[in-house]
């Protein structure tokens, strides 16, 4: 290895990968939960809930993630006068504890990125989930209801899992997109992989080499992430392991 790939550079990039993975995992999990919730709202029979779901989805889907990030990270704290701003967003026990926990000097910016990316991605996931539920035949609900399940149980136990399963390939694509979107955190000085690369460039002046290296790392990360998502998808698709006596007798197998 020639001079540019020093220990310092490797440290910067490794730290960056750590934050990128952390942001990806947190925002993916939150987006999935909120996306399913908002998708459920949009399918609900109550008009206010449906409107809430629609407004949420349309706003956060039609505004670029970068605008959301800058808005929550930089614009919102500026609503307050300087002393109040420092007390609310930066110098308080909660933020200090978060700083110690994550190693971020300004923990609020990390929180703002998580919030903004979650709003953005969950809006997309809500739509995908809704489309997934749309492919589930209404007979499934009717069968569950006629067997005595309440409407809520029929939805949570029968419709929702199948909806997630049907939408999962599209959800995976969006989650990988979200992983790449974590690079936008560099704009609000969260030292994830892209920011780490930029810092390394200003120290070594080896822009092309470092950018290519970062590209390779991002490609590897997205390959690993998509393999992980495919594994989850296969697990979701798997039939329950316990077989019934009819299946064991070989009758149910066509």
């Amino acid at each position, binding site marked *: 290895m020639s001079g540019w790939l020093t220990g310092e550079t490797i440290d910067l990039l490794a730290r960056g990968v750590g934050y990128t993975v952390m942001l990806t995992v947190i925002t993916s999990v939150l987006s999935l939960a909120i996306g399913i919730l908002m998708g459920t709202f949009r399918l609900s029979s109550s008009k206010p809930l449906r409107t809430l779901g629609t407004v949420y989805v349309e706003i956060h889907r039609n505004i*670029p993630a970068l605008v959301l990030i800058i808005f929550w990270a930089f*614009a919102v704290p*500026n609503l307050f006068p300087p002393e109040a701003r420092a007390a609310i967003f930066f110098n308080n026990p909660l933020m200090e504890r978060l700083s110690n926990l994550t190693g971020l000097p300004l923990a609020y910016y990390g929180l703002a990125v998580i919030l903004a990316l979650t709003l953005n991605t969950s809006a997309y996931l809500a739509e995908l989930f809704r489309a997934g539920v749309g492919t589930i035949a209404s007979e499934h609900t009717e069968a569950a209801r006629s067997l005595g399940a309440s409407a809520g149980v029929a939805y949570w136990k029968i419709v929702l899992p199948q909806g997630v399963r049907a939408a999962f390939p599209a959800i995976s694509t969006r989650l990988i997109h979200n992983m*790449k979107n974590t690079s936008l955190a560099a704009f609000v000085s969260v030292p994830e992989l892209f920011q780490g690369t930029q810092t390394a460039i200003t120290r070594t002046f080896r822009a092309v080499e470092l950018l290519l290296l970062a*590209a390779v790392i991002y*490609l590897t990360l997205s390959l690993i992430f998509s393999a992980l998502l495919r594994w989850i998808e296969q697990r979701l698709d798997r039939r329950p392991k316990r077989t019934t006596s009819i299946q064991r007798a070989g009758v149910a197998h066509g």
Partner: protein
Amino acid sequence: MADQLTFVIENLPNLLFGFPGQRPGGLTLSVLLAMFAVGLGFVIANLIGNGAESRWRSLRWLCLLYVEVFRGIPLLLLLLLIYQVAGGLRFSQGLTPRGAALIALTLYSAAYQAEIVRAGLRSVPVELVESARTMGSNPWHAHRRVKLRYAVRVMLPAFTGQAISLFKDTSVVIILGVAELMTVARVTLGSDVTNAPYWVSLYMAVGLLYFTVAFSLSRLARRWERRTQRGDLVHSLANY
């Protein structure tokens, strides 16, 4: 509240058209960048998408590699990479940030559109092409007049979605300092502390501008889709 509104209204021409002397900029430049990138990307995407379904393995692999690489790295990284690499070559010393942004957006959009072309081609029922061949059309003719024509109908909704998505992605070219909407907003606020109270209202205005374009485009696209699919004999027969 009133001064918030005045601030936004005062800067609205800049947000829409860019700073005087740098026009077109602002939202206009965002739209222009997206339009050209999607248009040029479409041409490349057709080559790559058709290549990915080609008979020759090496061409297929090359096209698939293109799609995987350009879809696997963040646009932000691609922008810097193109600017640095292309800017370093001797023949492109005069490459402006704007030009680099257009190249990067085009290559990025092409990868996503190529995937749509490929999926569209795959959705064509093989019987359709076979019947065209038995009717006596040559392979090229069958490909162009039957296969592509059917595939386009399947691809259209995905294309409009991609175009809208790319329009929102143009916000990222702020990293090269191209004077589009996001950059205008940042420069307007600057590092002036007295501007602090206006941040929220200005970024709300920026968000609203992006929202208006993206939302109305998606509604228009949906209406157009419904109209083209209704009373479309080829489509309804093929789906029969």
